[in-house]
């Protein structure tokens, strides 16, 4: 018997994710690969650049409404954000805000799969993230900003902060959302703190299911394109206002590590 194997979002590259999130036949990429907006900073560091700098911005419609998807390519440098890719995302948000102010709203979906800021462009990435954070918050006053976190990288670093600023965050079970990647925590604090090779623990702590249970994600869906598309449409129809982020309840951080995790419902 053949089971239902989802039409996987994670399996697609950034361009195909954007294409399938938009209404069929409406995908139109801006600054596409032939624009050759490559990072000029990578060659000096022995890294080959990519013609779209790892970010795809596409216009089209979503549920028949003007829309824009900004998708990062987790395969190129882990989807990390540099100057050009960062500017693509920031500009999309700024243009959508202009549209909203003009009364011709453009829906924005942030399809992130990103390790955070690109180390090779360090402070330019930092500046870009600050701009993106502000642009999300500004656009949010007009309309929901929707993030889809369903790729193989997840979102970390600055990009996880941006995600937390969105009205709606759609995740799959395979998604990961965290500030510091487990490998980074392990490097900084040791494997006793966070054993990054313990994959079930990584997902118990940062996985989509956990983030949904914590209320950090607003929808948990199967890795199946129809489900993800439906969740995105829902998010716009629902049009929920942003809920200011408050300090959550959590166990006493003074508890020994394992006791803390157990008290928080995580079996290490």
């Amino acid at each position, binding site marked *: 018997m053949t089971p239902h*194997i989802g039409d*996987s979002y994670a*399996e697609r590259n950034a361009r195909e994710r954007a294409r399938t999130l938009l209404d069929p036949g409406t995908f139109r990429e801006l600054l596409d690969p032939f624009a050759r907006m490559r990072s000029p900073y990578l060659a000096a560091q022995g890294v080959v650049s990519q013609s779209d700098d790892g970010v795809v911005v596409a216009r089209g419609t979503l549920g028949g409404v003007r829309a824009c998807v900004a998708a990062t390519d987790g395969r190129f440098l882990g989807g990390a954000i540099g100057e050009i890719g960062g500017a693509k995302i920031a500009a999309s948000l700024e243009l959508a805000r202009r549209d909203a102010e003009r009364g011709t709203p453009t829906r924005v979906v942030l399809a992130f799969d990103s390790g955070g800021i690109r180390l090779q462009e360090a402070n330019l990435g930092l500046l870009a993230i600050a701009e993106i954070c502000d642009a999300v918050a500004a656009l949010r006053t007009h309309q929901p900003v929707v993030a889809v976190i369903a790729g193989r990288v997840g979102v970390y670093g600055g990009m996880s902060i941006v995600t937390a600023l969105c009205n709606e965050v759609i995740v799959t079970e395979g998604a990961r959302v965290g500030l510091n990647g487990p490998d980074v925590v392990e490097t900084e604090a040791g494997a006793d703190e966070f054993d990054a*090779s313990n*994959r079930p623990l990584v997902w118990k702590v940062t*996985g989509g*299911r956990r983030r949904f249970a914590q209320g950090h994600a607003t929808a948990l869906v199967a890795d199946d394109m129809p489900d993800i598309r439906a969740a995105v449409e829902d998010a716009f129809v629902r049009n929920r206002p942003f809920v200011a982020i408050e300090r959550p309840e959590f166990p006493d951080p003074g508890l020994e590590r394992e006791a803390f995790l157990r008290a928080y419902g995580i079996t290490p």
Partner: protein
Amino acid sequence: MSAWDTRRIRKNQRLARAASYVRSGVFESGDAVAVLESVLEPGDRVCVEGNNQKQADLLSRALASVDPERVHDLHLLISVLGRPEHIELFERGIASQVDFSFSGPQSLRLAQQVADGRVRIGAIHTYLELFARYFVDLTPDIALVAADEADASGNLYTGANTEETPTIVEATAFRNGVVIAQVNRIVDRVTRVDVPGDWVDLVVVADRPYEIEPLFTRDPEQIDDVQILMAMMVVRGIYERHRVRTLNHGIGFDTAAIELILPTYGERLGLRGEICTNWVLNPHPTLIPAIESGWVQSVHSFGGELGMERYVAARPDVFFTGRDGSLRSNRALSQNAGMYATDLFIGSTLQMDPDANSSTATLGRIAGFGGAPNLGNDPRGRRHPSQAWLEMTSSTHEIRRGRKIVVQLVETFRESGVPTFVEHLDAVALGRMAGFPIAPVMIYGDDVTHVVTEEGIAYLYKARDVDERRAALAAIAGVTPVGLLADSTRTQELRRDGVVAFPEDLGVVRGEAKRSLLAARSIRDLVTWSGGLYEPPKRFRSW
């Protein structure tokens, strides 16, 4: 008058020396070093159960900790030199000679020990060959094995990983050697008797469950388009063409790709029930979709695979299982089955020379072979015919024999700059440096019937002479040094004669070689296919 029972007398002396540590046949794990020091004598042949899956690691750790003043110059017999303490045996002077099959993870350190003169390699064997010698000229004095459970009578239960335990124990026990088993627990009644208790002398409960590696799990996420293209060529150009029903697969991503396109590509070609019905291989998770789609009639396994226990137990029509429901594996019998009863072996290699000799040996490493040479040869003792076997010969003589299909599946380059096809195997230089009388060749070229690369298939069995064989191989060797020698006119002739086929000659459309052709594209998909029965090990989980 000469004595005829010296081995038995010595065995009794050995056990008597250890008696103070033993109660009802059982000793404590903390006494393992002392027991080994009591039982062992310098120069003993010691067989340590250690293969690429299950490891008697409590006992091997204890062996590496014995006093070299008391125990030295052991002759180590072991399938796979896989653990660091195996090498410590040489470093500490406990063992000075070794006969083995494979040394994957320790191949670099082993080469160093040989160079330093601390150990002498008797020979590098295939599994079956090594097991065979246990019954002829390398019978162990002591065997150190691993099992899941023991009962008060010493009966052993080995769960899904019976592997080579019965073989080692049989060779040792019936020639008055001492058999020591580490078990994960002692129970009133073993789940199933895999080794009878009167073959076992001493039992110890290990400080932690025996070490085991999920070696046959391939994450479909890592299969790329090139491997899928090659898989399509194999299905059309070999399995379909020769109607291959009985077969063995290696553990590479490329063979995993074949397993995963059977329910899609194979199904579309109408080949279900026509090919790939009876298998000799471990419970590969990537075979689940083919099994669930009704492709597979039977699977016999060398060993188990972590995470596949519940799935296997739920598919007793397909797998060999005990009354308890769990898999019964047996490396020696499965190797034998793979050698004599399958029509096809397909595997991969690191290097291949212009005559299709292949080796996984690289300079500075003594890696060995494992089971591939048993499966990847033409067993000339075979007498039962099959369509596939007979198609390998063009003879019409009244006396004729068929031939095993031996396929090597390789990309022309391993990494961007490292060619698979080379003028001379590293194994030749390695063998010379290590003083071996023969170069460690994994599969001899004259056993190879087909070579598949991303460029096409060389039907070597069809070649009329050595020159044509070389030309056929060069034709599919891409831009490697061997491939650049190919003459395009000659290649056209070989294609016309069917000695070489490119994808288009086989009706394989390159553009179809996409991951969407895989019946499962992630470990998660495999779990879904299994109806939740497959429980992948931690390291393969993304949820």
